[in-house]
């Protein structure tokens, strides 16, 4: 059997159909690759024992025998779900998240738990309480975050797909930094049931893979209404792969958000890759229109406030009483709460909870929280207006290529500003995808496309046509071949 490293879902399915190899061969190969390479990469917090992986899932279905890895804030029944936090280090999920249940039903093989920033709070996976994850293109660089483990595992060809979660860009930004495809669907398209909440009004499961078609194939399985999630939309999954013709939709207009593309601090190589992408889209037949969405420049500020406010509420449930880790030597109930949380949470999580309580507190909620909600509403309005003129909008996914470890240790705000391009889609609730669009100094660059609510089919179609016209997705990090 040839090496199956970097095989796509579609290639694996063809191999199964022709009898070239079996799901067992593929799973064995996948587990071997984790054994060989993950000491260097640190993508997985745990790889499960082979038999238990197989036993969890059906043997038939649209993803039968296709291995993938799951971010460690999505519940997999009877597995630990730690959110890369000490406070949940021993927590075993009593049930499957809805998305996990659907994947198992369709035969996907869930091989392990992927490392991430603690409670998905970060842009580099450095806040994980357990380990660092390294960028497969250059081990001195971060993979991005917060879903860094999920994304680096796919980028290094250890698995063909993975799930991450998104609150402000946590799938798209690492996908860009690691040179793969990352999708954040419309808010409410994928059930959040079984996803440990960070900021509930923004959180959404995201999908990573090395091709647009593979991302569409996973989306088909996990999208659609779920009564267990209060904010789930009343829509069914579609056949998202069917729309992938290699052509863009007739009469497509792409809006270039000029205030974002040419925002201060965007790397020159990034801008030039975006400009090249625009040429490709034009060759594919798209009409290009320059637009401006001025409120986007305030998106990161709005995101900081709303996400921290919701985090402060959501993380109040970790109290050392009902689940997770409890501090020893406590004499009063207040002690129990405070010490369990102080010992269990890392510094980034503590900072976000404290900021959240500040912006919600009596003296400051109007200045911060209520104003942020208003500006969020303005962003929604401006995007709606834009989508009257154009079908999809385009920006870079991140300001530059992957950065070094500790690059922002002295100025964490600069790390947070990594979210500038991506958090708008979370705040507005629209779908967005990052696709590889070039390299600078041998590190990948990502292009972001966003569309109106529930336009995943069109977004994937455009991304796929772009991908088929370019070669960027065919590059793989040589050290992991």
């Amino acid at each position, binding site marked *: 059997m040839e090496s199956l490293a970097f095989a796509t879902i579609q290639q694996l399915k063809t191999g199964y159909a022709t009898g070239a190899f079996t799901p067992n061969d593929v799973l064995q190969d996948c587990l071997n690759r984790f054994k060989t390479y993950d000491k260097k990469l640190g993508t997985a917090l745990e790889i499960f024992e082979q038999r238990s992986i197989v036993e969890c899932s059906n043997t038939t279905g649209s993803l039968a025998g296709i291995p993938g890895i799951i971010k460690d804030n999505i519940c997999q029944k009877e597995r630990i779900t730690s959110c890369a936090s000490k406070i949940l280090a021993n927590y075993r999920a*009593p049930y499957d998240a809805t998305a996990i249940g659907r994947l198992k039903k369709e035969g996907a093989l869930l091989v392990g738990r992927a490392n991430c920033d603690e409670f998905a709070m970060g842009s580099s996976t450095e806040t994980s309480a357990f380990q660092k994850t390294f960028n497969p293109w250059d081990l001195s660089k971060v993979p991005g975050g917060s879903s860094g483990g999920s994304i680096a595992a796919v980028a290094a060809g250890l698995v063909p797909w993975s799930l991450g979660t998104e609150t402000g860009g946590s799938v798209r930004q690492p996908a860009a930094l690691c040179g793969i495809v990352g999708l954040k669907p419309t808010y409410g398209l994928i059930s959040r049931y079984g996803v440990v909440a960070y900021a509930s009004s923004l959180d959404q499961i995201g999908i990573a893979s090395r091709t647009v078609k593979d991302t569409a194939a996973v989306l088909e399985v996990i999208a659609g209404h779920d009564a267990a999630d209060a904010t789930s939309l009343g829509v069914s999954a579609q056949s998202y792969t069917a729309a992938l013709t290699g052509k863009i939709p007739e009469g497509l207009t792409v809006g270039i958000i000029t205030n974002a593309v040419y925002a201060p601090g965007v790397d020159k190589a990034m801008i030039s890759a975006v400009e090249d992408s625009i040429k490709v889209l034009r060759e594919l037949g798209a009409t290009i229109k320059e637009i401006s969405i001025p409120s986007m420049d305030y998106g990161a500020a709005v995101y900081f*406030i709303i996400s921290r406010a919701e985090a402060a509420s959501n993380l109040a449930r970790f109290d050392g009483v009902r*689940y997770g880790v409890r501090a020893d030597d406590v004499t009063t109930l207040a*002690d129990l709460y*405070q010490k369990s949380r*102080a010992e269990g949470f890392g510094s980034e999580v*503590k900072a976000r*909870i404290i900021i959240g309580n500040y912006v919600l507190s009596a003296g400051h909620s109007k200045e911060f929280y209520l104003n942020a909600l*208003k500006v969020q509403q*303005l962003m929604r309005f401006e995007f709606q207006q834009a989508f009257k003129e154009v079908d999809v909008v385009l920006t870079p996914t991140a300001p530059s290529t992957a950065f070094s470890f500790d690059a922002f240790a002295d100025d964490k705000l600069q790390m947070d500003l990594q979210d500038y391009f991506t958090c708008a889609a979370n705040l507005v609730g629209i779908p967005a995808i990052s696709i590889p669009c070039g390299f600078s100094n041998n590190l990948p660059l990502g292009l972001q496309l966003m569309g109106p609510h529930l336009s995943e089919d069109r977004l994937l179609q455009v991304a796929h046509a772009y991908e088929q016209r370019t070669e960027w997705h065919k590059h793989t990090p040589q050290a992991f071949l």
Partner: protein
Amino acid sequence: MEITKEDLLKLAKLSALTLQEEEIPALIKQIKSVLFYARSVQKLANNDLVATQEITHPHLRADSVRLCSSQEIMNEAPEHAEGFFVVPRIIEG
């Protein structure tokens, strides 16, 4: 934007967190810089378009009761007995 050590400790208490002395300077620095940046939302807040924006909330399903096994829930607790969570004594007597 000033955040003093006293402010931070008060917020930490509200957040049910104790802080180590050595954590405090870095936290103050980080919180100040985020809040200073986040404050920029005010610049837009007086814009006419913003003033007319109504805040919408997502459509939610009915909040109906669903039963689940209390044993499964209890099994996650660090300490439990006879179907109850065990915590330090709350009422003296």
